């Protein structure tokens, strides 16, 4: 961790809500990426919090683009830069809505073509910027303004969707583990071709938690196994340290749910379904990790 540069790449202070997980994550992403970087940002909280014309808080170029369009914009940018012989990092920073819903077509296309860029989705599990409507990534049972009784279908499994594109590097992360983010971004940027990192980013207004709890809740997500940190480099799949520890004895997911206002309408039956989903997924991940180790 000592290697993380002290220099901040964001000036004070983006106008995120107090305690925003997506901002915490971005701090470390930019530290890892460094100055030779362009950020591409579709409509999302991060398109609004970056400062108001004529000012911005980022010390790297930021290209804002339409909601559905991030991966396509990065494709064009990366191809143009490479055609010019420049190796500038092209990094998309997009919300879960802009990634899993309206932006998935552009993302899927760019991955298939093998564009050279890093796509980072910060996942606050709702449309934060427009005031917390459900997204495809909203988890089962969560209250949003368009699911006032709680969402009735499961969270879209963005990671498996992306994984199906066989990219050279893919990882999950969580804003509560900044060093892990830093390392994963560094690793990703060292590999040519498309890379994807999916960061769970707790969001106080959306999750209906006090602003001081974001880091804590993120850790609970990992400890309960509802969010697993892993990375996949070509075929090598590794569970990251915090999740390796957590998977040994995950805390009940009920605690995670109870800590958040958005889950307040989850009944016991739904809670059991959520726990079962987590258990099943942990098993799958353990198996995958084992298989990956084997083949090495």
């Amino acid at each position, binding site marked *: 961790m000592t290697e993380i540069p002290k220099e901040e790449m964001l000036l004070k202070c983006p*106008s*995120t*809500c*107090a305690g925003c997980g997506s901002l915490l994550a971005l701090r470390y992403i930019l530290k890892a990426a460094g100055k030779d970087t362009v950020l591409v940002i579709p409509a999302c909280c991060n398109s*609004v*919090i970056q400062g*108001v014309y004529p000012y911005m808080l980022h010390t790297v170029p930021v290209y804002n683009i339409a909601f559905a369009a991030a991966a396509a914009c990065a494709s064009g940018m990366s191809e143009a830069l490479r055609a010019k012989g420049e190796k500038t990092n092209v990094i998309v920073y997009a919300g879960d809505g802009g990634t899993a819903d309206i932006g998935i077509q552009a993302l899927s296309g760019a991955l298939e073509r093998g564009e050279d860029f890093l796509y980072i989705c910060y996942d606050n599990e709702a449309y934060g910027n427009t005031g917390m409507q459900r997204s495809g990534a909203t988890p089962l049972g969560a209250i949003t303004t368009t699911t006032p009784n709680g969402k009735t279908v499961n969270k879209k499994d963005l990671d498996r969707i992306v994984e199906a594109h066989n990219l050279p590097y893919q990882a999950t992360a969580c804003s509560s583990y900044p060093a892990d983010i830093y390392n994963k971004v560094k690793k990703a940027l060292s590999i040519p071709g498309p890379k994807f990192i999916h960061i769970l980013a707790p969001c106080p*207004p959306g999750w209906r938690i*006090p602003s001081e709890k974001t880091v804590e809740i993120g850790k609970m997500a990992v400890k309960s196994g509802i969010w697993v940190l892993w990375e996949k480099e070509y075929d090598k799949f590794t569970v990251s340290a915090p999740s390796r520890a957590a998977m040994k004895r995950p805390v009940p997911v009920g605690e995670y749910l109870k800590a958040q206002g958005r889950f307040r309408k989850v009944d016991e039956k739904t809670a059991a379904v959520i726990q079962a989903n987590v258990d099943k997924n942990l098993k799958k991940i353990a198996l995958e990790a084992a298989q990956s180790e084997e083949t090495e």
Partner: protein
Amino acid sequence: MYEIRIHSRGGQGGVTAARMMASAAVKDGKFATACPFYGAERRGAPIVSFVRIDDAPVRIYSQINKPEMIVILDPTVMDTVNVLDGLKEGGSIFINTHDDVDFPAGFKVYKADLTGIALREKLVVAGSPIVNTPVIGALAKLGLFTRESGVKAITETFADPRNTAAAKAAFEEVIV
């Protein structure tokens, strides 16, 4: 037409206060509109809302630049915002405070410790005292609308009787 500008912070309920003010005036048989100025603001950032009260339908949508009255729900916004901007000569200022606040001469200044009242009435949500219902009581005292209409506007919005109690306390605290 009577024009009021309300200064508060995102999350403090300034917009709801504006709505209840307009609603109370309508119940008095007046015409009124309430209108937030929306920016891309987050919780905690200073915001303004507008209320217009008139005897005829209100047809103006643009912002209020020369208000008759300023309502300051959160005195801390004065650190960064010139709350008196455009206030008409002889206009009124209502401020939520327990301190003495100095304003330039030429304005009528009213005050009540709405935060104190809210704390006393235990009108606290997520750790924050609620000031947007007591302010309705205070403004009724200033004659913006009748006490009855103010109460109705509150009860239509909030079921909890602590709201009306707080409004009543504010009504009594303001000195006209």
